[in-house]
């Protein structure tokens, strides 16, 4: 396996509505930022890959317009997945493994403020049996939370603690969307949104974009003294129908975590793409992490959740902390589909 490091990362400020900025303008910021961080121009980048979802902004081929932000003249080798850009990173990582590329720029974006996100995400469901009933993502997550509570796996206090930690960690991040110091009592006093979820148990709607650059060891060593290498990466999907899978356990995360070799060493930090508070506890358990791991030092998705790029951002957040020497070994996780149907897990280590 070729050693691949994450050598640059940029993310737009996490905001509820980025206002009069279109996809191109969002993507330009992060693509140009990572190019500047590395000093790379398109000539130095062998492959480009992105993740986005047309339906978020409401126009077919939205990702085509975003290409303007790359300066693709002369033409570039480029691909796209209609998934969180963490999967675009996976495609780029595979490409580098073939030897066809040594460097790659990966980006994702989502302008969720334009549409009604919970309704848009309802369209992810089986179009014959489930979608016509229009269950929104929040209600589906609520079903999962209820199952966990009734099984005694989690308590409402557990959920509140996840939120408290997220808001607190986000205070260290200047461009996080939701931050602050809250007590458990304050949080539990809030009314239910869709029981048993309170508003703060749900991810905010966020507009934004993020980008990373991947590079092989030879290139990475010229950029940083210490680099964050992907030492394991795996992704798995579960059955779609909620009734066909175990909602109490994130089995695909467990398999992916084993495939990525999470337990081969101490995990200092983990950025988990768990949009609903209680899901952090599920993924933590599935990966076999304990309290010695700092989870979501960036605040996580509860502090800001760029659809189609939050998973990619997690790679950047972990990598930058490793490069700075704040951690040695970390886990980056991404999810897709209602109730954690699909999960991607990677281990990054400093060298």
């Amino acid at each position, binding site marked *: 396996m070729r050693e691949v490091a994450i050598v640059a990362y940029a993310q737009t400020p996490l905001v509820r509505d980025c206002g009069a900025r279109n996809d191109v303008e969002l993507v330009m910021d992060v693509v140009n930022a990572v190019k500047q961080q590395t000093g790379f121009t398109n000539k130095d980048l062998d492959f480009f890959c992105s993740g986005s*979802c047309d339906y978020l902004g409401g126009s077919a081929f939205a990702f*085509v317009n975003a290409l303007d932000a790359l300066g693709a003249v002369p*033409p570039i080798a480029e691909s796209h997945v209609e*998934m969180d850009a963490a999967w675009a990173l996976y495609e780029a990582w*595979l490409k580098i*493994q073939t030897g066809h590329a040594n460097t790659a720029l990966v980006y994702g974006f989502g302008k969720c403020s334009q549409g009604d996100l919970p309704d848009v995400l309802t369209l992810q469901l089986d179009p014959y049996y489930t979608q016509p009933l229009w269950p929104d993502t929040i209600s589906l997550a609520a079903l999962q939370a209820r199952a966990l509570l009734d099984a005694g796996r989690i308590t409402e206090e557990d959920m509140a603690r996840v939120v408290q930690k997220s808001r607190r960690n986000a205070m260290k991040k200047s461009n996080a969307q939701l931050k602050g110091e809250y007590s458990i009592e304050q949080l539990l006093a809030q009314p239910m949104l869709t029981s048993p979820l309170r508003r703060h148990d749900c991810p905010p709607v966020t507009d934004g974009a993020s980008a990373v650059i991947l590079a092989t060891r030879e290139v990475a060593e010229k950029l940083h003294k210490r680099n964050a290498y992907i030492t394991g990466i795996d992704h798995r999907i*579960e059955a*779609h129908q909620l009734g066909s899978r175990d909602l109490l356990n994130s089995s695909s995360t467990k*398999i992916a975590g084993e495939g990525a070799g999470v337990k081969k060493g101490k995990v200092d930090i983990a950025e988990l793409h768990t949009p609903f508070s209680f899901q952090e506890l599920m993924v933590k358990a599935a990966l076999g992490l304990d309290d010695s791991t700092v989870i979501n030092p960036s605040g996580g998705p509860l502090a800001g959740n760029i659809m189609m790029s939050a998973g990619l951002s997690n790679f950047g957040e972990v990598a930058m902390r490793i490069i700075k020497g704040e951690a040695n070994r970390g886990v980056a996780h991404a999810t897709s589909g209602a109730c954690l149907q699909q999960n991607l897990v990677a281990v990054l280590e400093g060298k």
Partner: protein
Amino acid sequence: MGNACAIVGIGQSERYKSKIKKSMAGLVREAALNALADAGCTWADIDAVIIGKAPDFFEGVVMPELFLADALGCVGKPMMRVHTAGSVGGSTAIVAATHIQSGVFKRVLTVAYEKQSESNAMWALSTRQPFSPHLNAGAGGFFAPIIREYKRRTGAPDDIGCKVALKDRTHALKNPHAHMHEPAENLTLENYMDSMMLWDPIRYAEVCPSSDGACAMVLCNEDLAKKSPNKPAWVLGTAMKSEPTMYPWREEVNPQAGINCAKEVYSQAGIVNPRKDLDMAEVYVPFSWYEPMWLENLGFADVGEGWKLSDSGATSLDRGGDIPWNVSGGVLSSNPIGASGMIRFAEAALQVRGMAGERQVPGCKKALGHAYGGGAQFFSMWVVGSEKR
């Protein structure tokens, strides 16, 4: 570069149609089962599934890989969904090949599909762009002006488009999967020239149909290829190139991204003179005038001469041409948009395996699969051969 990658199974919908009476799950499963059968495999033998399709607006399902995981035997396995507009079928095949070439996977299933009858493809391609005049006349409206400019530059006679369409529709008669099986009395130049003008200079007869359908392939490494029941095809080269749809003074008739993509895939596959070194090509031609244009873009003919090559019969299997193009009938005879790229790639592989039945190009050893998407700005191509590199 990378590990060798073989194609050992190919499956398609039994027949591409404007409305296939299957659910989307049934549609992809049919193609996948056919590919698995060809490869002598079961679901359990597959390490990962790579699925591709064009905009989700075509069926009204966001990220359909999520609900199709079960139908494709993917529970507990990795699944990825590629989307590069019209070229997606090709890009998906390339991403699947990357899975094998990386050495990370041993055998994968790749599927591409479209069920455009579920929604309205013309509408999905002409959605109102906010703040712009509502003049998006679909794909035809976009490409017609470019074809007009090609005709102006080359002075090509008016009937070239119809001649190419006739050729592809004649080819289609030998392909049991093709959507359009036109009765013999329809297949005349006079009839085609008489058909309704849609977006001048594109006539109805020169336009692809709107189809439902799916195509699937099983790809594997060299060790597993040795055990496959049917002869494998080998990936000799893959390339993807993109450029912006619009930029100042963009050359739209002969896009640079297409030229560069072809150069790269030829270089990987050792193709120096495409017309001589390749035995056939499956090229994404949804509007028949694109055959002469792509003949030039892909280096089969000099700039300005593509239409002469089409006119000469060189690209016709029935006329004994030396470089048959689209013997499957091409996009002009079947167009489930998300699958069309993969159908091209699959047909090229089928041909070098010698398994194309009545439409087999004799002695086919090397073939090109080509797909393009967006405003003719996303290109994906592969060259496959009957022997490993």
